């Protein structure tokens, strides 16, 4: 009973993450990579992403706060961030990164700052959702 409920919960959460556009196909790639040799692969990757992206976010903050703004460097950081987030299937985050880079190319400081807020927001939202989701997945797999 419990197990079924948990599994249903997992399935439903998962579906909603995709339906609401938080995750895309790339996340499925991660799921498919998970196997007996790497039973926690998805969790590991997500954890790694969030650790690394924190660093990137700090770099971008710094670059945005410096005057004059080095748009080149900003673009570079964002490029990395985008590559990273896209690799785990963080769809909304990636989209915000794309928007940011457009402002960056236009050297629109205001736009960059605003856009970056969006990036951070999406980044945080997804982090929370994934934490809950993966916890549920863990619980479901631990249930007999």
């Amino acid at each position, binding site marked *: 009973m419990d197990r079924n409920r948990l599994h249903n919960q997992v399935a439903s959460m998962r579906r909603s993450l995709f339906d609401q556009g938080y995750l895309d196909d*790339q996340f499925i790639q991660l799921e498919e*990579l998970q196997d007996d040799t790497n039973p926690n692969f998805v969790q590991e*990757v997500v954890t790694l992403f969030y650790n690394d992206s924190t660093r990137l976010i700090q770099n971008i903050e710094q670059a945005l706060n410096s005057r004059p703004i080095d748009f080149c460097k900003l673009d570079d950081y964002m490029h*990395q961030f985008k*590559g990273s987030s*896209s*690799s785990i299937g963080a769809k909304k985050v990636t989209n915000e990164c794309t928007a940011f880079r457009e402002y960056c190319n236009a050297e629109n400081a205001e736009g960059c700052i605003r856009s970056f807020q969006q990036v951070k927001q999406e980044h945080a939202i997804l982090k929370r959702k994934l934490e809950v989701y993966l916890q549920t997945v863990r619980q479901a797999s631990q249930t007999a």
Partner: protein
Amino acid sequence: MKNSSGGKGSMSTASSITTWKADVVPVPDQFPAGLRVLVVDDDPTCLIILEKMLRNCSYDVTKCNRAETALLKLRENRNGFDIVISDVHMPDMDGFKLLEHIGLEMDLPVIMMSADDGKDVVMKGVTHGACDYLIKPVRIEALKNIWQHVVRKRKNEWKDLEQSGSVEEGDRQPKQSEDADYSSSVNEGNWKSSKKRKDDEDETEDRDDTSTLKKPRVVWSVELHQQFVAAVNQLGIDKAVPKKILELMNVPGLTRENVASHLQKYRLYLRRLSGVSPHSCNPNNSFMNPQDETFGPLSSVHGLDLQTLTATGQLPAQCLATLQAAVLGRSTAKSSIPMPLVNQRNIFSFENPKLRFGEGQQHVNNNNKQVNLLHGIPTTMESKQLTSLRHTSQSIGNVNMQVAPHGAQSSQNNSSLIEMGQPLSRVQILNDSTVPLSVGQPIVPNGIAANVSTRNGIPENIRAPGYNLVSQTSSILNFPMNHASELPVDSFSLRSTPGMSDHTSKECRHDIRRLSAFKLSSRQP
């Protein structure tokens, strides 16, 4: 994909420089499982995902988060990887720079990756020689087929190896008058970076007549060439037209085109030789068949036992032939040597080369280290000089050694032949050497340069010493040396030993060109 065996195996042993990667290739029937991939990406998330994906493809994965580390790994274990996948944007080194390095040093297929899918970036990948470009995020499906790049590359390499067989026709048209027309079939594989070099038009066109290549090529064997020369002489070099030559030669299966292209090279050779003074032409005669009594007095010009050297195969027959042809050409023009003296049969005594290039092929294969980089380059060296050169020169003679019909100097010459990989500067030590040394020079620089440049991307670093020595040699031999190194290229494609990459030959040609540019400043009467 072929397993490391037979030809390939011998290829790797044939040259220390070009170790065939197939030696450590995964078991063929499991291919592409076990494909050894090096993946480079500074993004840890991407890196771990890629690693897992590649592992799931049953590949053997090594990951690096820095380009420098990747290069280090590659350098430490040149044959340890089959393919490299690298991100474009990396903090310590631009991905394209890494791509260049890998192409130059290891000549492995490299796949670039980036989140950037802009046309410019992708184009940059193409121009820098990447064999593929993946847009991030990379899906496992994209990685499943990367083995094709490995196979393709090896297939091309193998094809080139197979081409390095008999005496080539030297079909390549010389680009400019200065072009050293080496059509040495080389192991293109390891030196594919040569594509990036300036001399990248001299693609080897040598074909093994037993190869499975599409275009059948005429193999200009010793006899065939002698027939050719005889016909040309009979007609007179100025009046020799392909049609008439063909008629005179009367060789079934030979086409006018074959003759025409051969003639073109021959003419170029002669033209190049025409810069030689009549006097300097004389010794060329001595390059002829040692058995030819007619040229006995010439054989010891400048104390060089050219005949012996030739006999022992030290003098690439093609060089000899070309030299002789030059002499022939010259003699008709200015040389005091009457035509009759030029034994046409001997002018191009391909005897040795034939052995060398024909049967020598297997010898070459058996010779681990000898890469016959400079075919046709007269390596007329006195035995003592040869000995002194031993340690510095690539032993072209190794090839010759196998086939050298004459005993005395054979072994000596062989061993004294240029040994690969020695810095050319060593040759300078032999400053007091006579012509032979200088004669050998081109081989050394060319060979070494080829190898060195191929390996380290440092072209032509050997040339200078060669020049030094050249200046000390008699102009007679200098000339042939300088030019002979090109002559064979002109008229007779030199089959390079397997292991010598196409790049190497190109570099050689380049070197030879430079050598030939060296003025015969020290012409001695």
